[in-house]
Every structure is written in structure tokens, then in C-alpha cells.
């Protein structure tokens, strides 16, 4: 959903961080997107390509690290892997599973070009 809003948020974070490190070009952007974060990676890449044009991260490599979904099973008192919010516990089959991991959407790291390496435009 709303991947364009997210892409604009990413651009703003990337621009702020590049600026605070005196860098004028970003070579790689590493994102962490949880499996339960309701983000379509495909749509996000499409939006980023549009939104990052003419920015410090134009033509940067976009690396998206998926974070697997995790939930706390109240019956087993265990952390279990889940792929959807409505998945049952793989051990006991109970639906008393509260999502605990894989909901994050984060810009984790940036590869900044050396400062003398100016962009072409």
C-alpha cells in the first residue's frame, strides 16, 4: 500500500543522511522490509526509481533485505515463524499468535561515494 509515500520517506531520509555526511552521491541504499509490513517490494522499487531521479541517490543500487515474520504463540509460549498475520502456530495450530517481528520498514544503511566523486549532472 501507499508505496509512493514510503518512497518519498526513503528519499527524505537518504538525502538528510547524505547531507549530514557531506556526501553528494549515494551508491547503495539498503532497506529492511518486514514480511508483515504490508509493503509490496515490487511496487516500492518502481516508486523508488521515479522518486530518486535527480536526487543524490539517482541510480543507486537498491538492496531490500526481507525480514521474516515472527509471532508469539500464547499457547506454546514460543516465538514461531509466520508468513501472514492470520497464520496459525506451526506447532499447535492455535490462532493465538501475536505478530512480534517482520513488521519493520527501515532504511538500514547507505553506501556513500567518496566526497571528491561528484555526480555528472
Amino acid at each position, binding site marked *: *500500500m*501507499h*508505496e*509512493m*509515500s*514510503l518512497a*518519498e*520517506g*526513503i528519499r*527524505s*531520509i537518504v538525502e538528510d*543522511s547524505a547531507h549530514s*555526511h557531506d556526501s553528494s552521491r549515494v*551508491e*547503495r541504499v539498503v*532497506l529492511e522490509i518486514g*514480511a508483515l509490513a*504490508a509493503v*509490496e*517490494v*515490487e*511496487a516500492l*522499487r*518502481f*516508486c523508488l*526509481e*521515479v*522518486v530518486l*531521479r*535527480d536526487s543524490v541517490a*539517482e*541510480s*543507486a*543500487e*537498491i*538492496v*531490500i*533485505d*526481507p525480514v521474516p515474520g515472527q509471532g508469539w504463540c*500464547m499457547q506454546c509460549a514460543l516465538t514461531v515463524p509466520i*508468513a*501472514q*498475520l*492470520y497464520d*496459525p502456530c506451526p506447532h499447535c495450530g492455535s*490462532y493465538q*499468535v*501475536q*505478530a512480534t517481528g517482520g513488521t*519493520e*520498514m*527501515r*532504511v*538500514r*544503511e*547507505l*553506501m*556513500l*561515494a*567518496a566526497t571528491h566523486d561528484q555526480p555528472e549532472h
Partner: protein
Amino acid sequence: MCTVCGCGSGELRYNGQPASQRDKPARPGTTSQAFRPRAGDASPWGQAAPPRAGARARDAASTANADAPVDTAGRLDFGSGPAHAHAPGLSQAQMVRIERDILGKNDLLAAANRSWLATRGILALNLVSSPGSGKTTLLCETITRLAGAVPVAVIEGDQQTEFDAERIRATGAPALQINTGKGCHLDAHMVGEAFRRLHIADDSLLLIENVGNLVCPAAFDLGEAHKVVILSVTEGEDKPLKYPDMFAAADLMLLSKTDLLPHLRFDVARAIDFARRVNPRLTVMQLSSSTGEGFDAWLDWIRRGLAGARRPTAFQESRT
């Protein structure tokens, strides 16, 4: 802005008046500019993710893309796929760890809203549902029943028109209409602006009626105490599974229009079971705005919330 439902940030209006110029203008070269591939452009994404310049996401099923949706037995699944290779570079570049949440800006504004509300003892509820679930009727009935006991103010979010705010004002409660223009959800900035334009009494109830949409409003914290999701019995009982994010984000589900149950094949127990599969901690209440059935429990729930709304210290946990 949403690529799924086509919303945008332009045309935002408060009570029919355009938002001030402080609202960010569209950036040239981004939203207003049509996407076009550059001739001879090498893949900027590396081999893990070939770009489909100009291609619609849905066309991607035929490409050998790691992010491409999985097509199994006539169903396109955009939710699965292998991880990307992370090829380390060999430049003199510098790797910087920043660890910033993509929705961090909204969450920061939401935290400010939450603090503003807590110091004034205002209980804010964010009401979310699909269009036509009866949110506005439910609000009018709630306001009428609380009249004289609890002051209520309402922020209405709709894409266009002031119809809903007019219906609320007819009950005597102050209401501010936010027209999101092309937007599909309210965000924390819009609601913070509304605080300054609407008279909200201390120790009162603030009802925020979000844009009728079961998808996008789930992700945007407004600073509310609780999201309340409304599911009417004229909708399918499988909605909690079809739109799980909203039911996961909510603390309370109101199953509304229960007076119509005798005329429908709607399995209440199944609907509640599906909702609790998504969110085991969800509180569920059944009510009807037409007959008033179930309203006592709902109003008691509000009164309990109001009793704990005032917090002199800053922030309550924003989200789980």
C-alpha cells in the same frame, strides 16, 4: 501517495479551504513527471533486481525478477519471493548505518499529537472501516447518547465534500472536515493541523473518522489512543482475513448494523474468529445504531478510556 489506490498529496482541504502553502509542494521531477526509461540505461539496480522501466508491477510476473509475484494456479502472489543477493562493492565509498524508520516522520508527528492530547485529557479514537459501514451514523448516535455528559469533537476525513461534517454539526458537536483530495488516508500532520483549527475541550472525546479505506489508514499513526475498526454485517465475514492489516492495527472491533442480521446470511461467530486469528487481543462489541442495541457496552468502553486519558507525562506507547 498510493500506487495501489492512486491517491496523492495534492488538493488537501480543511473545511473546504485549501491547506496553507506550508504544505509541501509536489517536487518537480518526482510526482508530476511521467516515468520514462532512459535510452541505453544500464540497470541501476544490479543484477539482483532488473528494472522493468515503464512496466506495470502486474506485468512483472513474466520477468525473471526475484521480486516478481508468484503465479500459482491463477493467483498472483506479490507477498512472497526469495531474498536479494547483497553484493558487496569495492569502491572507496563509505558504508553508513542509519537505521531509520521509513514512517519515522509520521510517527514523530503522531507522538507530538499524542502528547498534546494527553496533557489535555482528550481521548482520541481513530475510526476506520470500508466506505458505507455506517461510521458517520454511529458517530451521530454516539454523540447524541453522550450529550450533556461528555463533550465530543469530530474530525472527518473524506476525499471530497463536507457532507459528513455537516451531519455531525447537526448533532451540535463541533466538527472539522479534512478533504484529502487525492489522498487515501489521514496522516499525523493533517490531524495536528486540525487540532489548531477545531475547538476541542479539555477532558473530552475526540472522534477521528478516517477515510473509508481498509488498507492504507492501518499504517498511519495519528496519535490516537486506539484504532477502532467497524465491520458492518452487510459486508463479508471474511473481511478480517482479506484486509488483515487493519484488524491487526485495531484495539476494538465494532460489529455494526446487527439489527439487519435476521435478513442476512452473516455468521457472527465466524467473523469474530477470523478477526481474532489476525489479532488475538482484539476486543469485539456488537451494536446497532438504528436500535441502540449494544450501545451501553460501547459507551462504557469510551468512559473507561476517558478516565485514563489525562497523562501529564509525555508519550504513551505508540504502536506495537
